[in-house]
């Protein structure tokens, strides 16, 4: 079976900072050795699939996308896009792909939104007439029509990201890489983008999207399958439902308590498979998520908290989310 994207034992190591001959190294600088961004990643993404890559910052998501977009060479292993090797045969790949990243500042501030997108379409050889027709259609779809002739430097972050999305679609790619496309966007702008991407994959036939995100709900809502990545390694890869089913035998409890510092006792507690801990300093509260083998340890957890003189504000047993899957596998949350 041929895949839209396939990687085999893909690794990427970034060299550490070189020592400067004539400059005294700054504090900690000598410790910056090689960084393994990807470590033996093997995935297969089918044609027509909306595939998610979920992981915290620094997990290796962007590195993987850059290798697949022919911008970076792997240190070892192989990556194929549309059946072509990214290292040996980039031209046919480049004809078929496009990429949009969150927080992108590409383009020229002097040009209008329309001109900017047109310019990028020329690098893919899209005839001007075709390009302008697509741009107008996409500007309407993304709600950017009113700003079509506004200079890029006058656009808000959300409008600019919509323009970037239009740039991604205007070349009619077969495979689209979306690297945190809704990063920093308001709810409405993010919704417009999510809906368009999902609709595009469902209706166009044969179009593939690789989406990276650290927004759990976004990946859960959009993706057919999700790979969970951390420290450059794929920890699990399945449909969102199956991933959640993996820990359904376990029980998830969420607690909101007075700010708690010492959580070491939870680690050793029998029946606690994993837990994560977030603080909200402004409210002086801590949010604890426990993945438990069963409900047995709940009483002990509560007594441990109250014995520290802390108040429990809420206790909630919940259905597992993708974040719970991640916590269950890694032993910490995304934040």
């Amino acid at each position, binding site marked *: 079976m041929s895949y839209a994207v396939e990687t085999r034992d893909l690794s990427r190591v970034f060299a550490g900072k070189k020592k400067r001959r004539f400059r005294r190294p700054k504090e900690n600088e000598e410790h910056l050795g090689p960084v393994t961004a990807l470590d033996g990643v093997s995935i297969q993404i089918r044609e027509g699939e909306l595939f998610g890559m979920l992981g915290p910052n620094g997990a290796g998501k962007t590195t993987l996308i850059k290798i697949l977009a022919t911008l970076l060479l792997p240190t070892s292993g192989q990556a194929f896009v549309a059946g072509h090797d990214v290292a040996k045969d980039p031209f046919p790949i480049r004809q*078929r792909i496009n990429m949009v990243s969150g927080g992108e500042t590409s383009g020229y501030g002097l040009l209008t939104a329309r001109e900017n997108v047109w310019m990028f379409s020329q690098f893919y050889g899209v005839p001007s007439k075709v390009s302008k027709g697509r741009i107008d259609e996409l500007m309407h779809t993304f709600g950017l029509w009113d700003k079509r002739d506004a200079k890029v430097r006058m656009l808000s972050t959300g409008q600019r990201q919509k323009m970037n999305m239009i740039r991604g679609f205007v070349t009619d790619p077969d495979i689209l890489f979306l690297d945190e496309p809704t990063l920093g966007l308001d709810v409405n702008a993010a919704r417009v983008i999510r809906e368009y991407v999902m609709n595009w994959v469902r209706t166009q036939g044969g179009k593939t999207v690789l989406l990276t995100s650290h927004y759990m709900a976004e990946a859960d809502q959009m993706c057919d399958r999700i790979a969970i990545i951390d420290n450059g390694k794929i920890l699990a890869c399945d449909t969102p439902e199956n991933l959640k089913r993996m820990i359904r035998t376990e029980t998830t409890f969420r607690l909101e308590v007075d700010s708690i510092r010492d959580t070491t006792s939870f680690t050793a507690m029998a029946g606690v498979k994993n837990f994560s801990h977030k603080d909200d300093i402004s409210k002086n509260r801590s949010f604890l998520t426990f993945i438990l083998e069963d409900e047995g340890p709940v009483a002990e957890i509560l007594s441990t908290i109250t014995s520290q003189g802390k108040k429990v504000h809420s206790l909630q047993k919940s259905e597992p989310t993708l974040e719970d899957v991640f916590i269950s596998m890694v032993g910490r949350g995304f934040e």
Partner: protein
Amino acid sequence: MSAGTVRRTDLRYRIALNLRAVVGRSYPRIIGANREPSWIFFEGLLPLLGIAAYVFIYQSFGARALEAAAGDPAAQAAIKANTNALVASVVLGGTMVAFWLNVLWSMASQLYWEKEIGNLQLYMMAPMNRMALLGGMAVGGMFMTSVRAVSTLVAGIVVFGVVFQVADPLMLLAVFFVALTALYGLGMMFASLYLLWGREAWNLSALMEEPIFFSSGFYFPVGGLFRVPGWGPVVAILGSFVPATFGLDALRQLTLSRTAFGGQLWIFDVKTELYILVFMAVLFLILARYSLRYLELLAKREGKLTSRHQ
């Protein structure tokens, strides 16, 4: 891959793709020139002040020489002709300065800038040839700078009353465009080096500003350096690696006549200089192509096509 759009790869398609890419990349520069009218002040009027300094020095020398040659009409005519030739050399040099600065700061350092603002990865991910990208930058830069250079030239003629005598306009055009091609070819070659050196290459641009103004003879006929014993010829030869040197020398010969300055301050005749410029243009374009290909590979290996924060 079975589904998806069938993509063409034939030669005709590739030519169309790269021509579109050239047009696309030149567009912001051509349009940008009109959208930022502040250039009239910063790049049209301010450079005239630099030119004026040289012009006034040459004119004061000429006035003193005229006083000394009072009563000798033949000598006075020769002094006036030489003063006009010197002032015209400065105006022509000032015009070419615009191109050299454009090559340094808008060609050589452009890929580094593109990387910083996040465009470079989008360029490198596109199927166009990288030379089409640089070609678009060069075409746009030439257009934008030509507008500015012509305005400097016209202002120079009007303000300083310079008289040009163009005997062979076709040759003049040929020398001008070949010199520009060689100059932008050099810029394209530097662009790939800057891609790898990044911010450190900034110093190189600064280094290549004033010293090149001098060694290429932007404000005086460079042949004069050969008459300076010792270091003069060395500086002139080093300066000759920049196409602007031969380009300016040939342009001055074509606009002032070969007999200006008694025919003593030219390097070679115009035809020889044109051949050298053609050779430089071809050489720099070929070197640009290969260095860009090599350095792109190196940058992909070292992860330097994208900024750290992207």
